């Protein structure tokens, strides 16, 4: 981090300080948690909102994207809950342990906390007061001083704690649904999940927004023990006026398996940070994502895969389709630490530009300190293949439809890797809806 010494604060920074000062006393947690929150907020204050002069935020100038700080949301009223119920309809067919938050507040009537033996799903606010809070607010994987992570630790009031006992395969997926309803507010959420040795779970996190101009910030901390497997599907479908910051921090033990997919369909500006740390030998990770954006929306995927163990493999593949004046950012880094021999890492980022004004920036990095490795990355930026488009049109398919077919095929490649059929349908439908709205 470039810790610039700055005396002038932006309006958003000043507002955040005021909100923190007034909310602090009311935030759940014991004294250790309070201390943790204060440290986190101090870290934010010291750095401020990062501008493009901070290398990690070069293409996503948070200071410019976040002009003000929204107030923390109050408890949702009946109308909001009814709206949330409607918003959750696409997920109704997916049988899952469901924990629903509306405006950051747990809503029991939209939730189903029943779990199978060996799986526990509880609320974060209880953990914050029973001594497990500090641990739940410190992931230990994301880079120190990351502003999105620090703000979440300072403000988060509730979330979900998931625990899968060793050797247990969770029979139902666990779905954490975050719904925003209202005009404008800030909401923070956090999922703290641990999969015990040999355990197996599918986590779903969805973000659904109405028309409001919200600021959402979510963190998922995922600890996958030796021999365990975790699959995570995230669907970000915030309102088109929302600023969405999200962080996924995963620690993988030995012979563990991670599979993640992130869909970025909404938000005015969204940054998805993914930090995966291999700490045990012989593990694998598949990290994928798809995104689409029109208008002047901004989608950022920032990814660091840290190989600090022997014989691990990682595959990263992200695809984004851009229309209007939209802009995508991909910053991906594979790090191979000294001694992390037999690492096999491959990363691919692809952006499809559908309109004259669309923009794509990519920075795929390799940082390698061990020799017995096979690592590679690729990046492509380009428009739809004219010849193929012509071929489709010559068969009588109108331009927009032909484009839609090709975009579908483009993002389809990563969407198809979602194993849960119902979820794959939800994601596919969302992609189709975006394509239909284009035409």
């Amino acid at each position, binding site marked *: 981090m470039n810790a610039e010494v700055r005396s002038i604060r932006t309006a958003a920074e000043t507002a955040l300080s005021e909100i923190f000062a007034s909310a602090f006393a009311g935030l759940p947690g014991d004294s250790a948690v309070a201390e943790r929150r204060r440290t986190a907020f101090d870290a934010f204050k010291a750095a401020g909102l990062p501008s493009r002069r901070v290398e990690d935020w070069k293409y996503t100038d948070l200071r410019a994207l976040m002009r003000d700080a929204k107030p923390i949301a109050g408890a949702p009223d009946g109308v909001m809950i009814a709206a949330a119920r409607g918003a959750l309809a696409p997920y109704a067919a997916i049988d899952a342990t469901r924990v629903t938050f509306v405006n950051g507040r747990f809503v029991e009537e939209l939730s189903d906390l029943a779990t199978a033996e060996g799986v526990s799903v509880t609320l974060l606010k209880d953990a914050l007061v029973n001594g497990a809070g500090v641990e739940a607010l410190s992931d230990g994987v994301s880079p120190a001083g990351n502003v999105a992570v620090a703000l979440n630790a300072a403000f988060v009031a509730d979330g979900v704690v998931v625990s899968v006992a060793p050797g247990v395969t969770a029979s139902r997926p666990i779905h954490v649904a975050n719904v925003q309803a209202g005009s404008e507010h800030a909401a923070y959420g956090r999922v703290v999940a641990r999969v015990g040795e040999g355990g197996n779970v599918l986590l779903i996190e969805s973000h659904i927004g109405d028309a409001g101009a919200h600021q959402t910030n979510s963190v998922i901390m995922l600890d996958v023990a030796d021999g365990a497997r975790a699959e995570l599907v995230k669907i970000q479908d915030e309102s088109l006026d929302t600023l969405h910051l999200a962080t996924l921090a995963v620690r993988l033990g030995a012979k563990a398996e991670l599979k993640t997919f992130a869909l970025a369909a909404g938000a005015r500006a969204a940054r998805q940070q993914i930090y995966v740390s291999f700490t045990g030998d012989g593990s694998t990770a598949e990290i994928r994502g798809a995104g689409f954006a029109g208008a002047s929306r901004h989608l950022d995927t920032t990814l660091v895969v840290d190989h600090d163990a022997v014989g691990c493999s990682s595959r990263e593949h992200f695809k984004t389709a851009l229309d209007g004046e939209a802009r995508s950012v991909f910053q991906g880094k594979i790090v191979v630490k000294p001694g992390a021999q037999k690492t096999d890492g491959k990363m691919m980022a692809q952006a499809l530009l559908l309109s004259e004004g669309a923009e794509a920036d990519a920075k795929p990095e390799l940082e390698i300190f061990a*020799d*017995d490795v096979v690592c590679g*990355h690729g990046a492509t930026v380009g428009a739809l293949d004219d010849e193929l488009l012509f071929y489709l049109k010559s068969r009588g398919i109108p331009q927009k439809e032909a484009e839609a077919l090709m975009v579908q095929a483009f993002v389809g490649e990563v969407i198809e890797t979602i194993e849960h059929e119902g979820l794959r349908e939800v994601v596919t439908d969302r992609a189709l809806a975006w394509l239909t709205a284009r035409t």
Partner: protein
Amino acid sequence: MPAVQETVARVREIDVDQYKYGFVTDIESDRAEKGLSEDTVRFISAKKGEPEWMLEWRLDAYRRWRTMVEPNWARVDYPPIAYDELYYYSAPKSTPGPKTLDEVDPELLRTYEKLGIPLREQEILAGVEQRRVAVDAVFDSVSVATTFKKELAQAGVIFCPISEAIREHPELVKKYLGSVVPTSDNFFATLNSAVFSDGSFVYVPKGVRCPMELSTYFRINEQNTGQFERTLIIADEGSFVSYLEGCTAPMRDENQLHAAVVELVAHDDAEIKYSTVQNWYPGDAEGKGGIYNFVTKRGDCRGKNSKISWTQVETGSAITWKYPSCILRGDGSRGEFYSIAISNGRQQVDSGTKMIHLGKNTTSKIISKGISAGRSQNTYRGLVSAHRKATNARNFTNCDSLLIGDECGAHTVPYLEAKTSTAVFEHEATTSKISDDQKFYCLQRGLSEEEAVALIVNGFVKDVLQQLPMEFAVEAQKLISISLEGSVG
């Protein structure tokens, strides 16, 4: 296979004090006072007999430099450079401008002989089929001899020390100097603008295909001396020039600073091919001594359908900080960057290129081969950007890294920025080590391990080697061997 052994020397033995070009030439020299001040700048300018406008240009750069901070974004690590402890000007004493080679200090000529530089024209002819190379040799900061001047002049090509160009061709220098790398560009380029003492100047007039390769050899000899050469090459409409640059320096315990600036301008339909074999002293195995090579090289494809191609073979220097770039301004212009960067011992390389697409239908290609060994760090850093109006910009990038040993690092930091939907960028990068099986196969055929490594490395870098002009292969002697392949069939 002497060529192979030579490459082995590059890959494996750079760090064992066997730097073969590390002799010191014993020549009295004429140095400026230690340190940098306006007086130093005035001293250099006066020594070169420069006109007032040039002095003002330098002073302006100097004043600006005093306000600048050294960049720190590259992945290189070195103690602070004491800019006020350096000498900024050193000339071999016997030369206020030798007129012919016969007037050049014989000791100097012997130095160049030791370097394998065919300064004498007849030597050039030996071994190279009918093609000749004009050489400008820069010793510490001063150009000591330029060959083939007369013949080039007949073709209308100007090839001379830049100090001479400032005196003889002020209109060209005024028009182009600083037009690609402005005096305010970056810390090292600005420093160069203030204190550069010599370098080469090339002007190829309209429609002229330069009749021979042009070449400059740079050598740093003096202790505690910075070398700041400045090269300016202008290819006028429809012309072509191929320019070669070679560098060596003696072994010194102290680090020596080299901050050069190279500016290329290609007008409509012109082409410039610029090749470098950089073999500055890399320091010893423990990282003591060696050249700090902070170089700004930039080409401006100013005219339509112009082309600039950079080829570099970087094997020397303790630190290499260098990003030969192309500004693709003219519609239909093309930029190329071919690079081999080999690091060993404690060397640190942070090098790459920038391809800035501004004009319509511009294309660029980047092929980078990095080889890290010992405890070195080797970083490729590159930018490809297409601006809004750069419709149909095309880039292909291939960056491969090879690791030899488990104490080194290989890093790839590419930036891709597409601001137009008509741009097509393709980037691929790989990092791997030499496969044990390949190596064993070579050993089983009787090659020593070093020969095996060298052979495989040669194969790895082949795509870039092929870009070097034939003459360079000869001049850089055993570094490259393509003779056998050429003789088949």
